[in-house]
């Protein structure tokens, strides 16, 4: 049986940052396990730029961003295994994994960092009726075919969902000579970043149809067309608004789901709202010694935030191994208040917060000219004016705990109208 102090599962941006942080904090025995044939995760297929503005102050492509961390990982001599699939994790931190060279392995870890990322919601999950021909792809799969494998997926496309991958793929398909007829969004707002709407749709005159959805799919063998309809305030198609779009390709960018099958096998408690583990300030899950970070915890829109969060997870995993993490005393909760969908971390052991506490959250709706209010118990400890808030853009609240007077109570974040 193999033994390591820390095993990181997943070699995308989250796993890379976590492994590096753990090693830098003095834990030598670190193993990173990656199921794909290279490190970097989904970044490797994100050949557009815009990564690293917060982290490096420059705009990198996905592979460039990943490369900086892969180089650092190698310089630090952190051990990693590619093409290796973790089959199971137990609560007492035994990992079973396989690859072609080592065969079936059991690995005992003092701490585990879960960094498996997320997967795309599929056509089946959103139950679009109609035929089931070839030519229907999730946006990320199409991105892989085009950017990694070098193959085109179609000539005339409709994209359902205006998440960032959908927007990026609208531009990518156009640049490869395909015609993108429309990007269709069920909600009255896009779930993607504003800069992506401008750079990927507006610049190429691709229409964004808000309050619309795909209600039928036609084509026996290859996709022939889709029917799009306007939806009412209950997101139900409005009869009489149907319009047929001839196309051979339908891309779906309809949400990402944290991949927590392994977390569940270790009895890690999952938050039904985020779809990811419930974590504390150290990014430790409900199972002692099992940490989690990145999109496996909650879906991020900026990789820079994934890196920051994962560094914290790796750093704290190393503190755990060294016996430097304080256990359950002084635990407070974070409560999503009015207008807030969720907050990560879910719990805070105040003693473990070294300088400031960062809370990540998403709002439930689009808000303009509001205030975000942070309360400790009933006391308002921070208020920030916000001109624009949208579910597609993750919000960060930084709390300097040293500046807060008195004992910290459960934290609530809420949206209040300007002037309230």
């Amino acid at each position: 049986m193999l033994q390591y102090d820390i095993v990181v599962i997943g070699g995308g941006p989250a796993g890379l940052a976590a492994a590096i942080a753990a090693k830098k904090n003095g834990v030598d025995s670190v193993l990173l396990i990656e199921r794909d044939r290279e490190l970097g995760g989904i970044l490797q297929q994100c050949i557009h730029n815009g990564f690293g503005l917060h982290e490096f102050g420059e705009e990198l492509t996905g592979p460039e961003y990943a490369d900086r961390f892969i180089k650092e990982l190698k310089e630090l001599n952190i051990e990693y295994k590619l093409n290796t699939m973790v089959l199971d994790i137990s609560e007492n931190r035994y990992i079973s994994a396989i690859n072609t060279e080592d065969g079936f392995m059991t690995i005992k870890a003092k701490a585990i960092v879960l960094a498996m990322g997320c997967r795309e919601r599929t056509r089946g999950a959103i139950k679009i009726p109609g035929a089931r021909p070839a030519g229907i792809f999730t946006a990320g799969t199409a991105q892989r075919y085009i950017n990694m494998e070098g193959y085109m997926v179609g000539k005339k496309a409709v994209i359902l969902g205006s998440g960032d991958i959908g927007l990026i793929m609208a531009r990518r398909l156009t640049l490869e000579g395909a015609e993108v007829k429309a990007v269709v969004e069920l909600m009255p707002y896009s779930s993607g970043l504003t800069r992506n709407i401008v750079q990927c749709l507006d610049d190429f005159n691709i229409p964004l149809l808000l309050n619309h959805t795909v209600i039928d799919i036609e084509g026996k063998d290859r996709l022939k067309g889709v029917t799009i309809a306007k939806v009412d305030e209950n997101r139900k198609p409005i009869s009489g608004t149907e319009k047929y779009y001839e196309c051979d390709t339908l891309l779906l960018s309809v949400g990402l789901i944290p991949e927590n099958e392994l977390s569940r096998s270790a009895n890690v408690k999952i938050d039904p709202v985020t779809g990811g583990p419930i974590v504390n300030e150290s990014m430790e899950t409900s199972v002692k010694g099992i940490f989690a970070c990145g999109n496996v915890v909650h879906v991020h829109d900026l990789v820079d935030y994934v890196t920051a969060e994962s560094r914290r997870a790796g750093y704290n995993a190393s503190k755990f191994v060294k016996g430097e993490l304080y256990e359950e005393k002084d635990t407070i909760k974070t409560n999503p208040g009015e207008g807030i969908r969720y907050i990560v971390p879910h719990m805070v052991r105040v003693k473990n917060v070294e300088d400031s506490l960062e809370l990540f959250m998403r709002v439930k709706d689009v808000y303009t000219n509001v205030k975000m209010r942070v309360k400790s118990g009933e006391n308002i400890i921070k208020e920030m004016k916000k001109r624009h808030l949208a579910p597609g853009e993750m919000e960060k609240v930084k709390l300097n705990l040293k500046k807060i007077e008195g004992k910290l109570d459960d934290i609530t974040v809420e949206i209040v109208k300007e002037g309230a």
Partner: protein
Amino acid sequence: MYDVAIIGAGITGTFIARELSRYKLKVVLIEKDNDVANGSTKANSAIVHAGYDAKPGTNMAKFNAMGNPMFDKVCEELDVPFKRIGSFVVAFDDEDMKTVKQLYERGIKNGIPKMEIINKEQVKKLEPNLSDNVVGALYAKTAGIVGPWELAIALAENAVENGVELKLNNEVLNIEKLDDGYKIFITEGVIESKYVVNCAGVYADKINNMVAEPSFKIIPRRGEYYLLDKTAGDFVNKVIFQCPTKMGKGVLVAPTVHGNALIGPNAEDLDLNSKDSTETTSDGLNFVQESARRISDKIPFNEVIRTFAGLRAEPDTGDFIIGESETAKGFINVAGIKSPGLSASPAIAKHVVEIIEDLNDGFEEKEDFNPTRKKVIRFNELSDEEKNELIKKDPRYGRIICRCEHITEGEIVDAIHRKVGATTVDGVKKRVRPGSGRCQGGFCQPRVMEILARELGKDMEEILKDNRGSYILTGKTNKGYDNKSAKELIATSVEE
């Protein structure tokens, strides 16, 4: 000249082919699609019914009762997943309980063993997730679940190993009567056969009418389904039916042999020209969801990973049509094999062999008939030690391709190289399941295509999803200097 030509490689066609392969006969199995089990066989409830449902005296009652007990042996021989988990017909009121009693009595008449009527407490004890409105149920212990397309594929493979010739991608265009048999015009030419067995599913009427007097019509009766993730696979332990109606057995909830949960079907008669209309509809899916809520309002519909629809071959005569045509000697119809067709298929096959044997005044058994096929390695079901051993022997079993279902490269390569091997992405999926999980192939489809291309010596662009015309890729991307046309462009501009 062939002795027997079977038209249609669904569950009945493949079963008959395999049963005929026991004898010294020249048999050909003709299929219009590029794979076996591509019609109703791949989209149904996957249930081996106990047999209490059909009216006594019908072919459906007779062959279901005979077919059910035959599944253990054939699934064992061919290494096909089959579980005898039992079924409930649940009642919600006194009226339903009357139906349950009628079904029980019908079951007795049909000769169905191991049935009992149980009360609410017994139902809830065995199936705690069912609605509190359930007042009782018919419990039929012999009902089971099976992998229908896996069974048909295994039957075809075993038949081919025992000498049957399989002609895929061959549609029957016309049939002509000869003095001592039939001339069959297929896509790739003309063949002759002494006997013809019509197992063409929803198209059986069309095939019959090529050579015999029109005597029946096959109505495509569509049924739509939801498939739930394995996380919901233990929602019920048995097949849960509601009381049947004129249109069929109603919406059911059942586990699948692979650990998912299946919910459906509705029943919608389509017109006679819509024999490939396997689209789902929002009305149909909504109906299924609403009907299933009677069984339980706790069904986790948020765990749906796929919706699909299949067509039942509904005969206008109301019963299976099995036998030699009255107007075409040696032409045997096996038509209108609707539910419980899958359950009846082993018995139907045996019966059809007897019909041909009678017509032919007997035939001789092969000494070397092999009833078993090479075991399928299911990596996920092995112990840790077995996994380790296997990877040492063949490292391809150490590479997981489908991360949701834990399917290895070794399993995919095996599925491609078997007799009646997979040639398409869906062909691989039907045999070893990559793409059947919660990501629906999002991660593994490019890898599966790569393996198919490599093993079959094809280009990635040639690999199909399913049937002819279902191409996935439309060409290479613009690769700048690596692109041939770009290179030519540059070369010409330099010359100029």
